[in-house]
């Protein structure tokens, strides 16, 4: 099918779909439910997606180098269990942070070794890592939900910095750091060149293997940070295995204009992609859409965003 688009439309296609979806949802909400449009209410809604937003920062990094990371679900589960079960004994609450980061580092090194060195398909490798971690957690918990989270983290989670809830502020800071890291450091150039063409990057002297491994290690460490934030948002631990978080992260990243290999959306496109998910959640809840409707809407949004991008790629 030959797509003939007029120049106006094709230049609009260059903008990540997240901005349009965000604007549409925002206007819908503004018109229909103006009472929800205040800083406090929106803060609560945006706070819920802060862990997802942090997870997306890692996801966009690996998707830029034509890989994918679904092991975030496993990291989330094991960090959650470690903090709520008391399995570590009587340690200081602050020790959970280095422990979680260490776990993320180990998972990332395993992912990186398998994907970068052994050339295992990233989907398979990271999914298998998730099933292994989930199995270990369920074995330790023998199917029973673990205990309560330490209050310390929950107290931090509920604080506010100016008008932003702390997790949201933390998320914004991390996004700024990632944006600077990708645009100002050599590593960012490596990532971009591998995304464009791995073979060309290899022959231009870019250390492809090392960059992919580092991207995966960073993604898993970021996932463990997301896990810390997510764990502090809940009062009681859970061992429910769900791939929703990493899959939503992939969806938000695509919505934000970062597709496997191509990164026009930068870091802020996916940021708005995550905000879209927050608003979508509010809109559908306030209109009383049942669960099947939410599933269909989520699928349609991902598909339409991907189609918009695919049409653009087909033209160029």
């Amino acid at each position, binding site marked *: 099918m030959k797509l003939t688009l007029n120049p106006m439309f094709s230049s609009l296609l260059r903008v990540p779909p997240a901005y349009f979806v965000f604007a549409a949802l925002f206007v819908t909400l503004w018109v229909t439910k103006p009472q929800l449009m205040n800083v406090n209410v929106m803060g609560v809604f945006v706070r819920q997606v802060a862990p997802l937003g942090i997870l997306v920062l890692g996801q966009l990094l690996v998707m830029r180098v*034509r890989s994918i990371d679904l092991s975030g679900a496993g990291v989330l589960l094991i960090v959650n269990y470690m903090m709520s079960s008391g399995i570590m004994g009587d340690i200081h609450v602050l020790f959970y942070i280095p422990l979680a980061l260490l776990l993320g580092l180990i998972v990332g090194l395993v992912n990186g070794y398998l994907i970068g060195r052994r050339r295992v398909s990233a989907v398979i490798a990271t999914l298998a890592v998730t*099933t292994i971690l989930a199995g270990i957690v369920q074995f330790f918990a*023998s199917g029973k939900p673990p205990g309560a989270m330490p209050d310390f983290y929950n107290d931090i989670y509920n604080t506010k910095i100016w008008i932003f809830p702390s997790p949201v502020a933390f998320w914004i800071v991390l996004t700024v750091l990632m944006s600077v890291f990708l645009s100002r450091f050599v590593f960012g150039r490596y990532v971009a060149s591998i995304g464009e063409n791995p073979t060309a990057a290899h022959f231009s002297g870019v250390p492809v293997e090392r960059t992919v491994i580092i991207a995966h290690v960073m993604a898993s460490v970021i996932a463990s940070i997301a896990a810390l934030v997510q764990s502090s948002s809940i009062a009681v631990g859970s061992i429910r295995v769900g791939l929703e978080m990493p899959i939503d992260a992939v969806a938000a990243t695509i919505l934000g204009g970062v597709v496997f290999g191509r990164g026009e959306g930068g870091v802020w496109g996916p940021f708005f992609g995550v905000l879209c998910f927050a608003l979508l959640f509010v809109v559908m809840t306030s209109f009383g859409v049942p669960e099947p409707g939410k*599933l269909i809407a989520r699928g349609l949004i991902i598909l339409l965003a991907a189609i918009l991008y695919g049409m653009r790629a087909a033209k160029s």
Partner: protein
Amino acid sequence: MTATLKNILTGKNSRQGLWILPLIIVVIGFVSLSVSTEDFATSQNLSNLLKQAMPLIIVAIGQMIVILLGGMDLSVGSMISLTTALLAIDAPAVVTIPLVVVAAVMVGFINGFSVVRLNVHPIIATLSMQFIVLGVAKLIRPVAGGSVPEFLVQWVNGTIFGVSTVFLLTPIVILIGWKLIHGSRYGLHLFAIGGGAAEGQEDAAHNFGISDRRNIIVAYICSALFAALAGAFLAGRIASGDPNVGTIFALDSVTAVAIGGTQLSGGIGGLHGTLIGALLMALLSNGMNLANLSAFLQGSIKGGILLLVVALQSRKKMGL
């Protein structure tokens, strides 16, 4: 000599991929289980084993067709759920069964069309389709219930001449899969398109005059139809509709195909490998149940075996 042996064991230079190692694992598992536990080698347990493996075998054949092209179909799990939901609506079988076929063809076509014409990455296209189809299934049947046509239940659970029907149905499905993949021109085209995609030459098959776009769309339709068949089988086994019954199959089918030596970048694989992979998965859960191993660790062990087998394969492409 050792180099040749190593090549055979790791499936290097083989068009069928690494299938000998999984086969050895299956044989070892089979022998050790029949020696160690006396409950294993009974005809009752073996028929159960096949009944457990049957839906996975069917879905995995469909999944393999897509994976051979270098694609992936994550919507098969939801398609299974949708099939059971459609079969359990309050209507006669002459209505529901054509409805299932139409739904499967539509889902497969949308998947294939998005991948081929709209240039969407297969994982993303089928992932979003997974949500949409699951949503539709939950609209039709929010919780498990209803009743499927009576003849389906009898077919799946009954016996013919004293032999469980599973023993007759399985070879038929395998024969269809074999004809499609290894016994037809279409199968050759699959390998050609996938082989090009794996080497980064997506238009290689197209340049040889193979209508790759049409073949890819047909492959996604086949995958959805095989999933619908597995769904019908499952519906017959549980005798009701359940919107959550298929969820695990999306990943289990990919796992079975990957364990069987089919490479996810496309072009390399074989039906026998996929059968071995599906059998290995069924054998694992059956054997671990008999060996009284914690049910929670089974997932970990499956994941570990998958990683081991996949890490041993040689692959050129990095990433997805």
